[in-house]
């Protein structure tokens, strides 16, 4: 059952990525005007000679399917073309910045999952005033946009108290920790609240479930009931939501990088979009979609392994 589920989800992943790549590449041609201008970037009309050169270089005059295929295979081989506005190869631009973004996302994921699950579990098990407090805090936090948190953190922890630098990416592990702590906090805040709320709800739902009633009716010690029944059964939804949160970080990273001046691929995406440098935007969009869909698929598969009911339902 689980293998069929994995096969289905993998097939869905490939189809989604293929369709997404067609849309991303096709964006060149649905834009008004000559696609070559978008590849030059900058929005200024280039000279006819440059246009002609680009048409040849990107095979823009070939049939769509052919040029798309060339683009896609190029991507698969790590050749994403040249950025004219950055005067560099796209691959180089991205590999240069990849490390910062990965570090930031991993850091934020850590900040989300451990405290989020702990807070949510605590709230559900303890109840009372503490739970109400956590509920109020997480509800508020979920409504605070990433960029506002960024601004607040810069204001308090950087400008007023001078704990952390407000700008830049840092070098080396210690330097990165120092520079990326605020961005990671900003990125993590609302997702942390989300994970905490879902954890709290999932644990509460299991606490009230019939099979927990059975376990209690048999006199099974409460710590076993909590570990083997409540937390064990809540693990599926909690893991799944945490996975969704991590996937969401990948998209959210660009805003934080922009706000904190982190030299990552998210900021690159925004800046190249502002310059209308489509060669870079296309590559980054494709990478983001692939990672986003892959993480979601992975999460689904692991969730199914944790809780076999998921794959059964999907198969039905």
């Amino acid at each position, binding site marked *: 059952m689980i293998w069929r589920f994995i096969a289905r989800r993998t097939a869905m992943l490939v189809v989604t990525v293929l369709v997404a790549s067609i849309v991303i590449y096709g964006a060149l041609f649905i834009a008004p005007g000559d696609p070559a201008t978008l590849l030059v970037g900058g929005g200024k009309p280039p000279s006819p000679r440059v246009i002609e050169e680009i048409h040849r270089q990107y095979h823009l005059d070939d049939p769509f399917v052919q040029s798309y295929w060339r683009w896609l295979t190029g991507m698969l081989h790590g050749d994403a073309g040249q950025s004219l506005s950055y005067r560099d190869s796209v691959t180089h631009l991205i590999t240069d910045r990849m490390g910062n973004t990965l570090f930031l996302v991993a850091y934020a994921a850590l900040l989300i999952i451990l405290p989020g699950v702990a807070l949510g579990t605590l709230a559900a098990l303890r109840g009372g005033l503490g739970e109400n407090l956590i509920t109020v805090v997480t509800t508020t936090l979920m409504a605070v946009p990433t960029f506002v948190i960024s601004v607040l953190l810069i204001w308090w922890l950087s400008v007023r108290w001078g704990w952390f630098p407000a700008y830049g990416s840092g070098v080396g592990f210690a330097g990165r920790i120092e520079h990326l702590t605020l961005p990671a906090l900003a990125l993590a805040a609302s997702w942390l609240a989300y994970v905490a709320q879902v954890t709290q709800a999932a644990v509460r739902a299991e606490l009230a*479930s*019939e*099979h927990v*009633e*059975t*376990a*209690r*009716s*048999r*006199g*099974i*010690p409460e710590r*076993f009931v909590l570990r*083997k*029944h409540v937390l*064990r*059964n809540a693990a*599926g939804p909690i893991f799944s939501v945490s996975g969704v949160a991590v996937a969401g970080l990948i998209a959210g990273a660009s805003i934080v990088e922009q706000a904190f001046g982190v030299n990552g691929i998210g900021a690159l995406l925004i800046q190249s979009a502002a310059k209308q440098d489509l060669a870079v935007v296309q590559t980054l969009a494709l990478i983001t979609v692939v990672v986003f869909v892959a993480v979601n698929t992975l999460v689904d598969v692991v969730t199914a392994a*944790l*809780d*076999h*009911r998921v794959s*059964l339902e999907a198969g039905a």
Partner: protein
Amino acid sequence: MNRPQPLLAIDELHVTLPFKGQPRTVIQRVDLTVPAGSAVGLVGESGSGKSMTARAVLRLLPGGARTGGKILFDGADVTTMSPAALRKLRIHDVAMIFQDPRAHINPVRTIGDFLTEALVTTRGVRPRAAEATVTALLREVGIADAARRLRQRPSELSGGLLQRVMIAAALAAEPRLLLADEPTTALDVTTQAEVMAIIDEARAERGLAMLFITHDLALAAAVCDRIAVMYAGSVVEELPADRLHDGARHPYTRALLASRPAPGSGGSLRAIPGRPLPAYETGPGCAFGTRCSQAQEVCGAERPLPRSGGGGTTACHFPVDPLVPQATTGAGDRSTTHG
């Protein structure tokens, strides 16, 4: 009564649950005894409070529930028991079989985990020894390929098999009292007969007492020694099972019997007007008064108390004399509304 001390004695049990911040009565008054080794059927329609009564015995009521009266198990009051004593009661003395095994058995763990868990965590039995014990029990409840079943998950078993697993789990605790809450309601009628037979045999072998919760009067009468009929949160009649069909004195019991004549009996169908009420919707008088064909003025004003007579007790101002044949309540009258 000069009977020996019963295993379970419920005395004027009253339970309220919070609803929108207000306590709401779900059990009005239950008096019930289960002698050691005997089976008592607690019969009622939906909302009568029969399930809640069984849960009260193990203190499994929802949060915010308030309990009045006494529930004595072997002389000890469950309602005021210390947590340690309550746990001992749950581990050693009373086991419960629930109506819906699919919801009541942890769906993500294996059948083996479910069965051995209690033995391992509460009695310190070694996992391998526990597995041997439950394998034998599974065979006893009619599951042949026990070893394979132990590795399966609940979703791979049919409802009938799961209910047998639930019974095996209850027997594994070697209890003295079995609380069976509609154990066969979700099952097909042929499976029901098998499952009831398994429970019956296991009880006979072990001298187990049972409180059997059901909506099916005929089934309760067939497998129990005594029957208690509940209506709107109160036990309205209690009598020996073999006297049910011709010795019932409460109009509700008689009307319920007439609503479901046995397939081959030739009796004709008689409906009770109205719908069954939960305890909190009843007035000051007899809860059944509004649906009773023999109700008189006093029935609407004064709640009847249980009175002994004819080998049982009846809570009715005008109990029927079973020797005098008569047309019971609101015979098949189509104009009866409020269904």
